[in-house]
């Protein structure tokens, strides 16, 4: 490190807060998160007799059965809004392929050995698309389960497909959800708070999303 660099070093800039999520993005995220928690609790109650007691926690089996589809609609709306807002940021590109190859470094917390990352990394993009396509399948199969009695007997194969699709896809989203919560609330310090007050430190952005940091800091210089 040159003296010049040290003099220009960013010690003062490390803690500088830069905006990452807008208020609308954060409100939408937590609406979706609460809806998913409800769907998870009631869904698990229907999934296994050993977890049926979870239904009692949220008002009993019949109440859970009545609300689960409606809350599902809220969750789907939240996901579709996220899709509208983040679709472009979530496009896979060449750097994602390089990042995917280097994923062991990410797992072993050697983030400095990874290629620079834009606003979202490859894992976040996988999570996003998994939830997006998952919600479409859950919605379609869910409607069939919601109004089973409206499906004529001649179309019973739809019922048979729906029970299997709904449970399988729900399990995949549970896997994604667990990883998401672990990564953002426990593993990566600064992630959870960024979804609450909307800001990250410059150092956080530089460490985990360097391309995005470059873009944002260039942009802020331009606007200044």
């Amino acid at each position: 490190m040159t003296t010049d660099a040290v003099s220009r070093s960013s010690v003062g800039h490390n803690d500088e807060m830069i905006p990452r999520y807008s208020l609308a993005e954060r409100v939408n995220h937590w609406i979706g998160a609460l809806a998913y928690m409800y769907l998870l609790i009631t869904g698990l109650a229907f999934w296994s007799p050993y977890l049926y007691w979870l239904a009692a926690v949220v008002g009993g089996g019949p109440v859970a059965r009545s609300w689960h589809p409606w809350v599902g609609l809220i969750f789907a709306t939240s996901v579709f809004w996220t899709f509208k807002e983040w679709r472009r940021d979530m496009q896979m590109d060449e750097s994602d392929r390089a990042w995917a190859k280097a994923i062991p470094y990410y797992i072993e917390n050697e983030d400095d050995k990874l290629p620079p990352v834009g606003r979202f990394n490859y894992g976040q993009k996988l999570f996003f698309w998994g939830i997006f396509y998952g919600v479409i399948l859950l919605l379609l199969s869910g409607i069939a389960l919601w109004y089973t009695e409206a499906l004529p007997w001649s179309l019973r194969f739809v019922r048979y497909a729906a029970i299997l699709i709904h449970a399988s896809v729900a399990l995949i989203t549970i896997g994604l959800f667990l990883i998401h919560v672990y990564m953002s609330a426990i593993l990566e310090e600064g992630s959870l708070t960024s979804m609450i007050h909307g800001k990250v430190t410059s150092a956080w952005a530089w460490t985990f999303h360097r391309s995005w940091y470059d873009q944002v800091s260039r942009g802020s210089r331009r606007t200044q």
Partner: protein
Amino acid sequence: MSQASTEIIRISGHAGAVPGAGLNRESRVCKLVDTTTCIGCKACEVACLEWNGYPFSETTFDNTYQTMPETAWNYWNLIKFNEHEREDGTLMLLMRKDQCMHCADPGCLAACPADAAIVQYANGIVDFQEANCIGCGYCMTGCPFNIPKFSPKARKVFKCTLCNDRVSVGLEPACIKACPTGCLHFGTKPEMKELAETRAQQLREQSGFADAGVYDPAGVGGTHVIYVLHDAKHPELYGGLPNDPHVPLSLRLWKGPLKWLGNLAMVGGIVGMVFHYMRFGPKKEEEIKPDDDGRRQ
């Protein structure tokens, strides 16, 4: 046969044998429907409504004797009529009383997620306990006979109880009591099976129905409602009676392998994360380092 709960096995301070012990040779009950002697009078439909206290539903008219297309949440017993043209050009009016089959391996019960919403008694009756029903409708998916029906008003599912309330006090089901031709029989499963086989043999040997037989489908472990059919090779002719009914494969996959795979994956995932955190710990932000040309990266 039906009063197994009241049968006394031992009596204290009692000399000699226990009166009535061993009286119940068999606890499994069975309803036998002989379609070959049904005249389609619908007395069973009326008796069912009478006993269970449901109002007469509006009937539909489609130029046949059919009361309505299928059973309803408050109409558990329905004769299905089929004007069947045989290979020799003659006509047959096939009539089959449709109701819950009370499977030994009930798909509705396998599908149900609500604790004690469906029970199977030792006598073979599969009964819905509406107080515990959450109205999810999974039983409608699990049943291979299209029997459980959803009530939008009650938001619960209903079906034939095989008159569990009557059978438990030693009476025959209401439909049996009303049948004027004796095409409906009620007794133990082995007795009804024997009676049905005898009748089928009679039809084969004396009435020219070479394919006459008994419908007691093995795919659902046998049923506690069995039929004598003129043509046991084509049960679909009798108002869509499935030829080889099974609990749907997707239900078996869902409640079997998928359940264990899913539980393993969920628990495994959580354990894996705990180990990951213990091994690698949290990801911490680093101080910004300038790159070679002195520019902050």
